[in-house]
């Protein structure tokens, strides 16, 4: 049991839960997706392990969000295979409906603000917990961690975008998922809040949660993967395929000219 940010985290609990399931990994194999004649993703392979972070970087329009939606089975791939632990989803599928869906075991925090507008931020967080019969604990601590105490009882349209972003994150974290897919979650946050989120993501990683993080903040990515085994960065190019992937060294020593160009042109918003 470790205690960080005032939260008691039982590390063994999550690992034990994962081990009971069998295969423990979120895998996307040959993920291919087209919209009309536009091929957005071409045979993308990606892996997210529990307790590990996969960071996805790439230019706008490369298909990063599409990949997240495909992996989360919200917009299933045209072809390919998604494995969420022991659950396997093959595409194309005869059945349009996802049988035995992986949510909220696998959940997503979207780049856009997808909070329900008729509920307060508190209710946005609590409603899924109640409906999933998940014990509500540490809400006050989470609220405190994200500095949400002052506005948690307000409605989404009554708070700033950054505050909504924090509420969306808190909602996902409280669901106690094994995998979280995070789509540019710090895009609306200031440096201080990005730093808090970074620390909290590291804590979640230690808790055993696997994360796919799409970000444009290279320094944020660098700090998140921390050179640990299993963590890796993947660069998704314009053609919708992974051009290069590797550990944190990839950011310092890119092999392909495309990634070199991308990193050199990218303005780095350092988190210091």
């Amino acid at each position, binding site marked *: 049991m470790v205690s960080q940010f005032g939260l008691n985290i039982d590390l063994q609990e999550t690992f034990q839960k994962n081990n009971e399931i069998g295969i423990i990994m979120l895998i996307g194999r040959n993920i291919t997706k087209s919209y009309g004649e536009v091929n957005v993703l071409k045979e993308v392979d990606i892996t997210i392990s529990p307790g590990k972070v996969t960071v996805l970087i790439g230019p706008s329009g490369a298909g990063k969000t599409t990949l997240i939606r495909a992996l989360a089975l*919200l917009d299933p791939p045209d072809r390919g295979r998604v494995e969420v632990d022991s659950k396997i989803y093959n595409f194309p599928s005869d059945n349009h409906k996802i049988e035995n869906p992986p*949510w909220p*075991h696998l*959940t997503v925090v*979207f780049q856009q603000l997808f909070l329900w507008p*008729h509920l307060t931020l508190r209710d946005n967080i609590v409603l899924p917990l109640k*409906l999933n019969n998940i014990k509500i604990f540490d809400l006050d601590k989470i609220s405190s961690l994200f500095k949400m105490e002052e506005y948690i009882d307000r*409605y989404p*349209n009554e708070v700033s975008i950054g505050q909504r972003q924090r509420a969306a994150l808190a909602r996902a974290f409280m*669901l106690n998922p094994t995998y979280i897919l995070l789509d540019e979650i710090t895009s609306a946050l200031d440096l201080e809040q990005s730093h808090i989120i970074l620390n909290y993501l590291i804590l979640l990683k230690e808790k055993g949660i696997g994360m796919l993080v799409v970000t444009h903040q290279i320094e944020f990515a660098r700090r998140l993967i921390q050179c640990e085994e299993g963590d890796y960065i993947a660069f998704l190019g314009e053609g919708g395929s992974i051009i290069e992937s590797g550990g944190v060294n990839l950011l310092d020593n890119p092999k392909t000219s495309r990634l070199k160009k991308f990193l050199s042109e990218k303005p780095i918003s350092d988190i210091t």
Partner: protein
Amino acid sequence: MGVFDIIVRYREAFLGGLRVTLSLALLTWGVGLLAGILLGALGHRYRFLFGGPLRLFAFFLSGIPFLVLLYWANFPLQVLLNVVIDPFYTAVLILVVLNTVGVAEICRIALDDFPEQYLLSAQVCGLTSRQTIFHIQIPLILRQILPGLLNLQVIMLQMTLFASLISVEELFRVAQRINATIYKPVEIYSALAIFFLLICLPVNGLAIWLKYRFTRNLSEK
């Protein structure tokens, strides 16, 4: 003879007319709302089978004056079908059809335009379809359609007045009859206005209460 003298003196006639008007309105509201919500949901779910025909029907219906529909249903249609239907039920039928289509279109449009992102959020939060419908979709859609639905019901109430033109003994026809007897149009039609106000005020009050109770300005602040 003042307005209230007329109301007191002809109270039985007015109450009879009021009863018929309320019957027309209640049938129109009840059947129209239930059938309309169902048809609207079907129109959203099965766009080709129900949605398209519903839109087409609503389009044509909106182009035909209510009186023409009423007359057509009361005379030529019954001759064509070789049936005789009580004018009250003819009026109910036309009012119900109009209300059903109106309600269905309001519901279908609200469902069609429902922001997909709220459903995605519900999905990834592990909500079932049923939970999503009851906790996310219905509360949000109700907030959106309530004012329009209630306004439509007030309009339907006022349209019951046209039933007098096919000899339905509702309030307006009663007022016309009394006026033919004593010729006091100002007082009689003022009395009629009071009756309609008495029915409309609670409905409008309910609309306002529901609006303040369940709807909230969702725009950015």
